[in-house]
């Protein structure tokens, strides 16, 4: 018996496609669809409202603050965690003593669950007793600071945690990429008279291009996605100072049960991510060397 080729192909694709569709594509499309209806209540079923939910968002100052906060959060965490990851990878890639211990140390934050991380940093940030305050008192002579309780410092405090958690993870990718660079390339460069800086900028960094693109895309997505520590530590406060798109979606959807508004917010989040990813691939991708 001979099966037609297309049947064979669909049978092979079927299981994965079914799971992906059921748990990813259909819910995503359903969310976008729900964003066009009002929130149903026991007395009043959902009615079609067109783009009214989006219009309501446009007039919601908290939405704009969350969006702005999220941009700051991305701008603060993405370059910082990439730079730190690269620096750590370059460092532990060298022939230093105890580099295995260093690698483990840098990687540890990654394996900790975000909730545990949040607890850890609650200790660090505790006014007066916490490690941060002790350090600032010792080194700078500052008084106690309520790092996560005051509007000026809360967002920065959350960003520091994200960088701390992510840099070690991205370091692993850089480390793997660094070890894949043939040593003879670096030897050839140094024999040709290139200084260490020149070798880094003209050889190492371009060869790490694909890795950097991969990490950058992931870091940007994470900056919109990984908000567990904010939910645990500040719930978006004080006074929305640490509200991000994701925390605002959570709050709207699961605290106020305004599912229509939450769906519209999700639509905005998806659009933002899609635009950023497209930009990254076209801008960086053109200048990135793929072997």
């Amino acid at each position, binding site marked *: 018996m001979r099966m037609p080729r297309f049947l064979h192909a669909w049978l092979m694709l079927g299981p994965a496609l079914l799971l992906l569709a059921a748990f990813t594509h259909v819910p995503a499309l359903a969310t976008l669809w729900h964003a066009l209806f009002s929130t149903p209540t026991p007395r009043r079923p959902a009615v079609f409202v067109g783009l009214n939910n989006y219009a309501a968002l446009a007039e919601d100052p908290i939405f704009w603050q969350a969006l702005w906060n999220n941009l700051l959060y991305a701008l603060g965490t993405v370059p910082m965690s990439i730079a730190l990851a690269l620096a750590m990878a370059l460092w532990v890639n060298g022939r230093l003593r105890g580099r295995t211990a260093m690698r483990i140390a840098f990687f540890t934050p990654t394996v900790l669950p975000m909730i545990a991380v949040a607890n850890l940093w609650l200790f660090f940030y505790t006014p007066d007793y916490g490690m941060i305050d002790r350090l600032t008192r010792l080194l700078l002579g500052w008084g106690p600071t309520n790092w996560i309780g005051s509007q000026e410092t809360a967002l920065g405090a959350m960003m520091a945690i994200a960088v701390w958690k992510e840099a070690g993870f991205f370091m692993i990718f850089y480390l793997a990429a660094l070890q894949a660079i*043939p040593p*003879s*390339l670096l*030897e*050839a*460069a*140094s*024999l*040709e*008279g*290139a*200084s260490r800086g*020149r070798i880094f900028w*003209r*050889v190492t960094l*371009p*060869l790490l*291009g694909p890795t950097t693109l991969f990490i950058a895309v992931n870091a940007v997505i994470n900056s919109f996605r990984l908000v567990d520590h904010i939910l645990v530590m500040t719930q978006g406060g004080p006074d929305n100072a640490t509200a991000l798109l994701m925390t605002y979606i959570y709050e709207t959807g699961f605290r106020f049960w305004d599912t229509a508004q939450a769906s519209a917010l999700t639509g905005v989040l998806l659009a933002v991510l899609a635009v950023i990813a497209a930009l990254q691939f076209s801008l960086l991708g053109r200048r990135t*060397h793929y*072997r």
Partner: protein
Amino acid sequence: MTAAPASADAIRLDSLRKQFGSTTVLHDIHLRAARGRFVVLLGPSGCGKSTLLRVIAGLERADGGRVVLDGRDVAELPPAARGLSMVFQSYALFPHLDVAENIVFGLRARRVAAAEREARLARAASLLGLEKLLKRRPSQLSGGQQQRVALARAIVAEAPICLMDEPLSNLDAKLRGEMRREIRALQQRLGLTMVYVTHDQAEAMSMADQVVLMRDGHIEQDATPAEIYARPASAFVASFIGTPPMSLLPLVAHAGGAGIAGLPDHLLAPASAAGALLGIRPEEVVPAEDGLPACVTAAEFLGAETVLACALGSGGALLQARIPGHHALPPGSPVRLRLPPLAHLFDANSGKRLPLPPFA
């Protein structure tokens, strides 16, 4: 900078030593190479050729001895300051740069003026036939083209010394032959002092002014190709040089002289040579009615000639003979072979070349 004395060698190595951990990879290496020489480092895999090259280049630190380049002790100089260029076995081309940028990488690093840089690039590109490939990436080139880019990068540096580590090992036989001639011609035209690593003795013999044959981290013989062929310094050298290499036959005492075990009627050397190894070049063996009786064990037809492997006498001595023409004899065929006059004797234990005993 004062000019080095004209008599100074381009390269001088004095009691050079290198070890990795507890294993010594280079023992007490002494080497001199005059300016403009083509020196080939030859030896079996793992004998330390690459390591020696890397020590000269400064990519590895010597554990003892001196490296003197153009009269300067370069121990404290980084690779870039040693006045040499290098072609790596893997070519080490930068995959993200096009051919032109690969070639001028070093010139940019050394801040050579743009006009000069372009001029040198154009000269190197035309010398190596790369003009049409300058905008390509290395991944878009064939092996031979990549090799030429690596060569171009080495020559635009205009360094007086050029090091090459098995640059042709990735190429097919035809291209290898062409590149050998090109490299040799280029070296002579530019007056470079070349140190060239290979484990192919035919390549070494055809290109070198000076062959340095290495074994287990020391130099077994350092001589011209003609000398190393005519007077191998040891049984190891003898069995490394030539296609096929020299056959080594153990000599035993017979009445009135020395010969092969089991063939008392055919004396090959005076009695004092008994116990030594007799070296015979396969190309000097000829079939003859009055020759030694032998038994073919294998025949290899090469086109213009045939290489016969023959068992000789009762001691299992193996003699190879390179005979013009097609003689694909089946194994077991009897043949009679005449050996050349006594020319090479080696000590059976140390392998050292022995002086020829006077005929009594």
